């Protein structure tokens, strides 16, 4: 979860050279923006256009449509002005007209989704993503770029971003007041006629015993066994070996080429796919063993699973964008060396704007997901996320891929540290910092250097 925020932060840090203290508040803003879709009745000004907490009137829907469409166009515009609207950032060359039409269509789709899909989780996410993606570049355009042109020191940039964070946080508070808000979460979603309870946790139990590895998924609310599979040790070993072999084959196949699917990524994906496929085919159903060497239980709801998948998907999308598009290439170049990139004819200002667009998009989506996970929205939500995010980014050595790694290290260490020391959950954020401080003292350049 930290990862979604950390990616944006890392991109801004490495490419725009802003250690952005406002990023946590950007997430917070994303979470509050989603309120517009989810519970329009609870939003000041918009509540005049709503009949109930979740029943906007036609006028309210029109407002949402306009906001959604406008924000989408704004987002594309921020990618590179009028040029971008004509498709300059696309990976493929397309006639201007096509690009414009596609952009307009996309904007209209977002607008329709925001208004017609109102109150649904996905629509809220999309809406909040595009709104933030349109808002974040404004910060860059009117604040950070001005200061960068003055050549201020990094410390000064920190102070500036702190001030921006203040403006954002209290701006939201001015509009929404200081009270805690919460989303209306539908507990069931109909998919193809079948009702799925999204908010209810499922138990995933893993037992490791002398007879093999057993995985059970149960629904505690209805006490139904959803999935039950045992792998005896030989089978488990075969599956494991097969996946490693397939993974290595994939690695060799791609070795030496630089593409969206690099050798490591392809290898990993193939290995995982083989592992799950093999596991599904070769498993056998039994009941839970009496004695197990290791047993662990993971609580997971469909909602959480969805968010995790979404995060992975978005990381994949970012990876593809960085590797395949011209803009992504320019971003990587700017991240490596800003001056050199400029000398080579890259419009670094434009690239930086693009970075902010992506950071805003991810912050919007991440913030919404966060709001759904926590259930309650507070103004300080972002700030307490900011600290672990920074920890993750610094751990990763201020690179985008490093930030991913850092996020997992920080997230894990927060949980493991709490569990190991038996401390109160209040110490979750400090735990991230203890890790950060230890790493900084031992290896100040970060994990990936």
């Amino acid at each position, binding site marked *: 979860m930290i990862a979604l925020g950390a990616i944006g932060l890392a991109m801004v840090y490495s490419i725009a050279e802003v250690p952005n203290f406002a990023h946590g508040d950007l997430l917070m803003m994303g979470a509050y923006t989603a309120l517009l879709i989810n519970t329009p009745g609870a939003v000041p000004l918009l509540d005049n256009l709503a009949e109930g907490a979740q029943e906007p009137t036609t006028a309210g829907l029109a407002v949402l449509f306009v906001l959604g469409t406008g924000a989408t166009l704004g987002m594309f515009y921020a990618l590179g002005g009028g040029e971008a609207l004509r498709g300059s950032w696309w990976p493929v060359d397309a006639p201007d007209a096509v690009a414009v039409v596609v952009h307009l269509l996309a904007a209209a789709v977002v607008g329709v989704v925001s208004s017609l899909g109102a109150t649904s989780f996905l629509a809220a996410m999309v809406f909040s993503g595009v709104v933030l993606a349109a808002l974040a570049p404004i910060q860059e355009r009117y*604040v950070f770029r001005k200061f960068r042109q003055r050549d201020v020191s990094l410390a000064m940039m*920190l102070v500036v971003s702190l001030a921006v964070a203040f403006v954002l946080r209290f701006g939201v508070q001015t509009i929404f007041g*200081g009270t805690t808000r919460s989303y209306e979460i539908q507990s069931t979603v109909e998919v193809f006629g079948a009702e799925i309870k999204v908010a209810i946790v499922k138990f995933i139990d893993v037992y490791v015993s002398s007879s093999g590895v057993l995985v059970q998924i149960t629904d505690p609310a209805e006490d139904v066994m959803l999935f039950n599979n045992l792998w005896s040790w030989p089978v488990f070993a075969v599956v494991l070996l097969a996946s490693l072999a397939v993974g290595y084959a994939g690695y060799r196949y791609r070795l030496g080429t630089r593409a969206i699917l690099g050798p490591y990524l392809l290898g990993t994906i193939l290995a995982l796919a083989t592992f799950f496929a093999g596991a599904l085919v070769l498993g056998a159903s039994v009941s839970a063993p009496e004695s197990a060497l290791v047993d662990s239980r993971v609580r997971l709801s469909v909602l959480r699973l969805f968010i995790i998948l979404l995060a992975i998907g978005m990381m994949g999308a970012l990876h593809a964008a960085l590797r395949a598009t011209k803009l992504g290439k320019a971003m990587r170049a700017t991240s490596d060396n800003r001056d050199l990139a400029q000398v080579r004819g890259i419009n670094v200002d434009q690239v930086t704007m693009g970075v902010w667009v992506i950071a805003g998009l991810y912050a919007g989506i991440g913030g919404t997901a966060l709001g759904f996970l926590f259930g309650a929205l507070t103004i300080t939500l972002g700030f307490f996320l900011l600290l672990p995010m920074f920890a993750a980014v610094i751990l990763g050595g201020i690179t985008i891929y490093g930030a991913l790694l850092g996020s997992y290290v920080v997230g894990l260490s927060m949980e493991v540290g709490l569990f190991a020391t038996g401390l109160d959950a209040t110490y979750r954020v*400090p735990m991230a910092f203890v890790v950060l401080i230890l790493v*900084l003292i031992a290896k100040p350049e970060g994990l990936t250097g």
Partner: protein
Amino acid sequence: MAVVSDVIISLGVLATFYGLLALGMNIKYGFTGLLDFGHVGFYLVGAYTAALLVIEPDAGGPDTVYVVGLDLPWIVAVLVATVLAGVVGVFVALPTLRLREDYLAITVLGIAAIFQRIVQAESWLVNGPDALRGYTPPLIDLFPVTGGSPVGAAVMAVAGGAIWAGSTWALGRAMELEFDAGTGPGVTVAGRLHAVVTFGTDRLIGFENYRGGALVAGAIAAVVGGVLSFAAQDGFLAWAVVVSVFTWLVAFVWLTRYSSGFDAVDYLTTFALGAAYMGALAPMFFLETFQLWVPLTGLAFAVVIGVTVYLYSNWQRFAARPFGYGLFTGLWFGFIWYIPLQILSDVAAANWPSVASSIFGNVVWVLSLSGDVPEIGYPRFKLFLFGTLLLVALYLSELTIDSPFGRVLRAIRNDERVVNSLGKDPFMYKIMSMAIGSALAGLAGALAAMHFQVLVFTMFAPRVTFIALLMLFLGGVGNNRAMVVGAFLFWAFQTATTQLSGFVAPGLRENIQAFRFVVMGVLFLLLLYYRPQGLMGERAAAEAGSE
């Protein structure tokens, strides 16, 4: 009758200990270049240490739990809190100082967050998420004091004498500057006034030695004030009036120095601007409907700000003296609020006695006249106490900064390698800078504990660091005196907006309170962009370097 001098007094109290906080920040960032985002952590350490030292031992009550209560006198508590915060500062600095500046800032921010979380989570330590309360500030039983009693006489003697000495010193300084400009003694307003307030001793001691003269005058004033106050309540009142009027006169003398070159046009323009800013707020006072006054006030402010900016860029008089114009516009604004606005409704009702008592009460700021009897209440004593501490800290910081040690600190800020090549270890100096800065934050924390009488972990949010930074940049980076100015400006803004939110429907008050932070953030950004050295800037390098 509306006496608002009490508001000014409470503003002053807040400004004094926040000034100390900013002073600590200045030592760290302004002089040494260490961006300490965890400044609030030391403030927290100081506050809780002081509170735990003075609080009575835990009686085992169910509502308040804390680890230890030592029931020590405040003076010990304040000292220990200061020293302990400094020591904590050293321990925080040891691992973190070797990091790059942005890492340093984030790491210390994290440490401050950890401190806050410890206070919140460990309920045995200082009552956990609930407030720590149950201790009383020093000498509070004696107050309020009135004339005709030994305590009242003593308070008047000490406070009156000190104010007198301070004002006389300020007057002497103004006089000295006039001498430098070529006038003789006793010719100018300042000179004549000085002769009066030193009770004629200035001729005995000599005009050059105005510092000694101020002390003598203060001592005489202390005796006079003490005797008068002991004799009768009327004497107490009379002497308070004299002291208050004297301070106003000194303020006027200094103002005329700042306004040198001002003529009627300038005064009128600044007055008009100040009045315009006040007038822009009028819709807020008079209109009830929120949909009506919000756009109207916004529009009015846009117009006034637009006019100000236009004048600044297009009018020779303004552009030549932006500082004087800004100062006087602000002063007029404050003045309009302080006197005319408070008597407005009484004048309209032709209630003249009330008008007179309002003006009197606001002018005689030394006494609180809101009660039945004129008295010196605890807030005024607190202001006096904190103000004295602030001045002492300020003096000591100035000494530190002007010493060779301070010069090394500034050299570290400018270029660390130079210091290194001159054979001094920057690391040790940085540690010491952190210790001093943190100790000042601890002192501020102890005073805050004294002031609020209740401590909750939310009071130590990272916001405090931001406020300290704002004061730092507002006043001037690397300028100790400017910290006090910055603190006063910040709290003046806060007080003004608090007063304003009193006119707003209660449901919106929270939004207004949040909105003022937005305004503050925007102003801060503008300040950072257009005047990164702060309003006053660093004290002229030549002045500091020639010593």
